[in-house]
């Protein structure tokens, strides 16, 4: 049994997976888990926002829930995009998506920190 699965060569149908290591599928699932983590954090932040009508304290929680939904939908598009890019020998790297998620998470952490400092 070899360690690294070689990329199969020869004509391939677009629906066929890219490699036997299922790298793209594992990455897709990793995005989905990240989306679910956003949803969990969003629920917690909303729970801690006070629950007394609309307030600015709900912003981090709402942001996290919107991010969760967006990420889980975007994950499938990213999966398909990666599939086609690799098939066409184009770069699989997605710096803008990565930067967006990093900035969003930092913003959320900052929002959560402010909520905690002001929590009574």
């Amino acid at each position, binding site marked *: 049994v070899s360690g690294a699965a070689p990329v199969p060569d020869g004509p391939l149908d677009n629906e066929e997976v890219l490699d036997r290591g299922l790298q793209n599928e594992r990455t897709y699932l990793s995005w989905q888990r990240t989306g679910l983590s956003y949803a969990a*954090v969003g629920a917690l932040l909303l729970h801690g926002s006070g629950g007394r009508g609309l307030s600015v304290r709900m912003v981090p929680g709402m942001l996290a829930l919107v991010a969760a939904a967006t990420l889980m939908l975007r994950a499938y598009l990213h999966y398909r995009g990666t599939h086609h890019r690799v098939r066409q020998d184009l770069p699989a790297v*997605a710096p803008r998506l990565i930067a967006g998620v990093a*900035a969003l998470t930092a913003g*959320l*952490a900052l929002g959560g920190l402010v909520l*905690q400092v002001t929590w009574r």
Partner: protein
Amino acid sequence: MQPEPAQGQPGGPAARRRPPLREVGEEPDYRFTLANERTFLAWIRTALALLAAGVAVVQLIPQFGIPYGRHVLGVALSVLSLIVALTSYARWEHSERAMRLNQPLPHSRLPQLLGWGLAVISIVAMALVLISAGQAGG
């Protein structure tokens, strides 16, 4: 026609700015790119888990006998979360750049910092619980 991005002009802004990722070196095996992406996502989930833990400590667990005890733990966890989130893109970018240039992957001190940070937070949490229990008993 746009001028080519200046590289190697000391002192200018272009000298400080590194060339875009896609223009550096050569395209690595896509499996390495995806592995790097998954590692980035694992760090993001770690940041989210730290944030969730911080929020839960402040809002869900009972008050310690010591004033602001919960806040100290919650804020420490959230600051760790913020550090992990703020450094996540740079870590991913440095690894991707190294892969494209066929260089060794850069070493990160964050795992060490995170390990020590969580150990200290755990010890402080244990101390707070023991002190609170002692106050309740005595």
